[in-house]
């Protein structure tokens, strides 16, 4: 026997426990809220016990959309829009690639993708400082 994979394990699929359907109904509700009132919200996926089958059902039903994004801050955060526009799958990882938290966000755009106001202000200052330096350099050159 050369590797662990060679050990015969009989995998039995016992089916989901029905929680994926509950989550999907909640997504439907939240999406209606977004459409009617513009209210954004999200579902914490760690709150409900989902079996592997439930997870698959959830992913298959929502499908894959057009947008894939990755944020690098305190480890990667991977985001993709599902096949249902406005429904985003957001997974936060730490530096060791372990899942910290996982959400389904129902929003026009997930909050973590928007540039935070304070950071934008800091960025503006940094850019002006850089432009000032460039100007000094060209004056001396």
């Amino acid at each position, binding site marked *: 026997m050369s590797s662990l994979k060679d050990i015969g394990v009989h995998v039995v699929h016992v089916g989901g*426990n029905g929680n994926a359907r509950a989550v999907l109904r909640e997504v439907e509700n939240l999406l209606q809220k977004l459409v009617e009132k513009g209210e954004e919200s999200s579902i914490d996926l760690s709150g409900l016990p989902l079996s592997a089958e439930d997870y698959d059902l959830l992913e298959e039903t929502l499908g894959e959309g057009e947008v894939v994004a990755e944020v690098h801050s305190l480890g990667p*955060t991977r985001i993709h829009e599902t096949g249902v526009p406005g429904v985003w799958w957001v997974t936060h990882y730490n530096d060791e690639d372990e899942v910290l938290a996982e959400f389904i966000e129902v929003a026009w755009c997930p909050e973590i993708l928007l540039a*935070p106001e304070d950071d934008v202000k800091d960025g503006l200052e940094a850019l002006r400082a850089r432009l000032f330096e460039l100007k000094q350099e060209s004056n001396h050159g």
Partner: protein
Amino acid sequence: MADETLLEILKRRGISRRGFLKFCAATTSLLALPPSMAVAVADSLGRLKRPAVIWLSFQECTGCTESLTRAHSPSIESLIFDAISLDYHHTLQAASGHAAEEAREHSMKADWGKYLLIVDGSIPLKDGGAYSTIAGISNLQMLQEAAAGAAAIVAIGTCAAFGGLPHAQPNPTGAVAVSDIIKDKPIINVPGCPPVPAVMVGVLAHYLTFGSLPDLDDLGRPRAFYGESIHDRCYRRPFYDQGKFAKTFDDAGARDGWCLFELGCKGPTTHNACATTKWNGGTSWPVQSGHGCIGCSEPDFWDAGGFYKALSTPVDSVTGAAAAAVAVGAAAGVAIGIANRQRKAQARAEHQTVTIEDLEK
């Protein structure tokens, strides 16, 4: 530096607002709060100044510390070492001997009335507390001194919360829980043998975020994590409802993932977060790996009948008597001693041994 807020510390380390937002989302999830609370969590964590924490370890196996240091969500480094000032923890701190004890005394003086006291392990009361001492100071004395200046106490692990294994019959050291000794301070019990790492971090995060104790149940446990039974949140619950039970650990039912109730699972009477939080970074948990819950976050779990006896099996009557006697106080130790001697004699007379059949009952 001591007056820096958490947000300033993170910023100094080059972590952006996005990173902070992520940290708060993970913390909110950990606290089992609705995702919409993330903004409130961010607001209050951002303004947080590092509170001092003193951690005392008494009659314990260090399993709780082992478990805590393997917490990954939110990363323990950022929470423990940035969000709090851990001034004394004799396993984790670099200082030892007199220097360590000085650090504890200094922190107690500097933050008197404000520090958070964390205790793991039970406290032995028998024979003047001689069974466990640190730097020549009995656990009882150290606890009383440290508790006097604490804002609140977190009893980590079943030993500190309920007496745990040292408290199990015949309790040779007269071990008791923190709440048996300290009556005038708010105490949060975080039982488990060990507790789920995320739960320990979650309780600290809650205290840091809101500056107050979380909502507690009648045993002093945070409802956010201990509000529901293992059974209520178990993914095998549907099989229980359908009356599908594994009868042995290797029958067809066990292979199909049926309910482990008849194999002694204590899920219905145990309150903990294992079923949703899971262990080892969400990899698995006891019931998922095919073994029933042993009820380690409940008082006297060790003496609550066999691990492999179904809950419907009557529990040995001596257990109840001994538990009641301990509650009365140390003076009742004699009564337990007698009860246990009688039990021992009885056991010898009947020559009780555990057989395979017992395990399969």
